[in-house]
């Protein structure tokens, strides 16, 4: 991961998760948390530290290992006046309650003709790079993308964690909130009071005229580091942090490609069925005339994730792979 820490970077991404939740719990008594080991233990990633102490057992609930019951109960509570924030410890475990994410939560409003709303947040630790192996390392934001009716956020900085968490918890729509495991220890500026990052607005983190790099969560620092290296070679990359997959800020992508005529999508999920395919589709359709070169996707390899660090590096995006992809376009 890129280390771009400065003096103002005093809070971690990890702390910002708890901070973001706490701010909303203070504002709104209908916000309640549930999940495995999130209470006194503060969560296995320490992303809920302090919540149990501040808000007590009626607002921070430890659950059995019952992912279906966790998100199912969150759904029922959301339909009846609460704003639950459910933790699914590792995003891989979303598979254990996938019916709720795929068939129940995103559909109930539509299929009842708008009779109910489901204002809930499902938070989960996503992504690899830590050597947790095939069942604890996946980037599964693409799973969520297959399902119309879910909003999807995936912050890359501590301040965005807080700002997007505010939007997520205040949203009357269901949100899947991907916290990246590889970013938990990273630091950044603290979010100002009342910080809210609206959904569906990509951030242009770096300007550049030669190529657009579209990134999300863990791939944002990768893209930024790659951009620095490329700058040294005289290639100026524009770096966009999508921040959300739904709503998807394709306008920002198209505007950037208008300037750069080149697009590289950097995504951690596998190439097959990865979210970059949706971004590329829109650009290959609506932005076809803007393009001067093939569109590239630096994505996870189409293999399960191996345990050994060196093997994992072979199959997830790295700075080198981003740099290589951009170089191949620059000479185009």
């Amino acid at each position: 991961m890129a280390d771009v820490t400065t003096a103002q970077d005093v809070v971690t991404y990890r702390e910002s998760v708890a901070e973001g939740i706490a701010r909303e719990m203070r504002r709104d008594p209908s916000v309640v948390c549930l999940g495995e080991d999130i209470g006194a233990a503060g969560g296995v990633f320490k992303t809920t530290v302090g919540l149990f102490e501040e808000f007590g057992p009626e607002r921070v609930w430890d659950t059995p290992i019952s992912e279906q019951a966790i998100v199912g109960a969150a759904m029922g509570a959301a339909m009846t006046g609460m704003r639950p924030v459910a933790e699914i410890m590792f995003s891989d475990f979303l598979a254990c309650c996938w019916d709720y994410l795929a068939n129940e939560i995103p559909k109930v409003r539509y299929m009842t003709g708008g009779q109910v709303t489901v204002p809930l947040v499902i938070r989960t630790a996503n992504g690899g790079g830590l050597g947790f192996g095939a069942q604890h390392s996946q980037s599964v934001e693409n799973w969520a993308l297959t399902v119309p009716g879910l909003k999807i956020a995936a912050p890359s900085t501590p301040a965005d964690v807080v700002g997007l968490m505010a939007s997520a918890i205040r949203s009357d729509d269901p949100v899947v909130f991907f916290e990246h495991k590889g970013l938990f220890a990273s630091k950044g500026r603290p979010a100002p009071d009342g910080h809210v990052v609206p959904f569906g607005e990509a951030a242009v983190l770096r300007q550049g005229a030669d190529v657009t790099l579209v990134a999300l969560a863990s791939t944002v620092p990768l893209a930024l580091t790659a951009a620095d290296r490329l700058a040294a070679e005289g290639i100026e990359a524009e770096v966009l942090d999508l921040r959300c997959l739904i709503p998807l800020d394709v306008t920002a992508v198209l505007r950037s490609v208008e300037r750069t005529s080149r697009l590289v999508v950097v995504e951690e999920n596998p190439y097959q069925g990865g979210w970059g395919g949706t971004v590329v589709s829109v650009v290959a359709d609506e932005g076809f005339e803007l393009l001067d070169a093939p569109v590239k996707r630096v994505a996870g390899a189409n293999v399960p994730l191996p345990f050994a660090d060196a093997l994992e590096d072979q199959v997830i995006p790295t700075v080198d792979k981003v740099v290589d992809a951009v170089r191949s376009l620059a000479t185009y």
Partner: protein
Amino acid sequence: MTETTATDLLALHETMTLIRRTEKAAHDLFLSGLVKGTTHLAAGHEAVAVGTRSALQDGDYAFATYRGHHHAIAWGATPEECLAEFMQRSTGLNKAKGGSMHLTKAEAGMLGSYAIVGAHLPIAVGAAWSARLRKTDQVSVAFFGDGATNIGAFHEALNLASVWKLPVLFVCENNFYMEYTPIASVTGVGNPAADRAPSYGIPAEVIDGNDVVAVRDAVARAAGRARAGDGPTVLEAQTYRHYGHSRTDPAKYRPDGELERWLERDPLTVSAGRLREAGTSDDDIKAAEDRAAAVVDQAVAGAKAAPQADLSEAFTDVWADGGAAWRT
């Protein structure tokens, strides 16, 4: 114990008749090509829905399955809203976006019919949790079939409800069949719901699901415990579906005579018998049944006359803002 007067009972009988007539109308409309898709009729199960609702209070929640017409109507959906839904009319209960399997009357606490077996049990638990968090006196009921007791969500829901001592009633409508397979052939215990309750520390009763008063009494006891903070109850109501599983099922897998035996204990026959015992005249019973029949006749006419689904509705109601925008 809730006392059930003859007047109460007559009202229950009338609602059950309303359901029975609606199911019959749905069946006939299907045969005449006006109802498409699939339907899972609840004729035979009426007493469970009506008995349960009658023991509860306004504002108590219900969560049902794809076989949920009776619950919707018991919670106050009108036959016309339901039939209009099956007939894909814009006046349908779910604006023709849900269909038979997803009847919902949220304003009355009937929070949906769910078509993935067992999935709504945790959701019902969540509504009960919410009632507790909001410190209301509400109870949440999940209705489900015998087949649902073998799916994982059942297990997770019951355990969580028990551990959190939530005001939730798990009401199994054991009609002895899944789709075409007898439940006994795929379940390790005899009473698929009730025999599992002890493994969550939840009290259970097996009840006569064709006797509306028996259902009402059992639910009243369970709801009382729930409201007193004593946690969930499992009720296994034994009943039988008169039609096949769904519209395409002729139910040939039933042993000879089985349907006939159950028809002798038709919930409407049972309630009529109880009414007579309580001194209600045949005329009064017939008057109630006629009122129900008239409502359903009007409902059929009303639904037929209603406009088809509004095409623009395909792109509404995804999000709380009413729209379906997924991108900028």
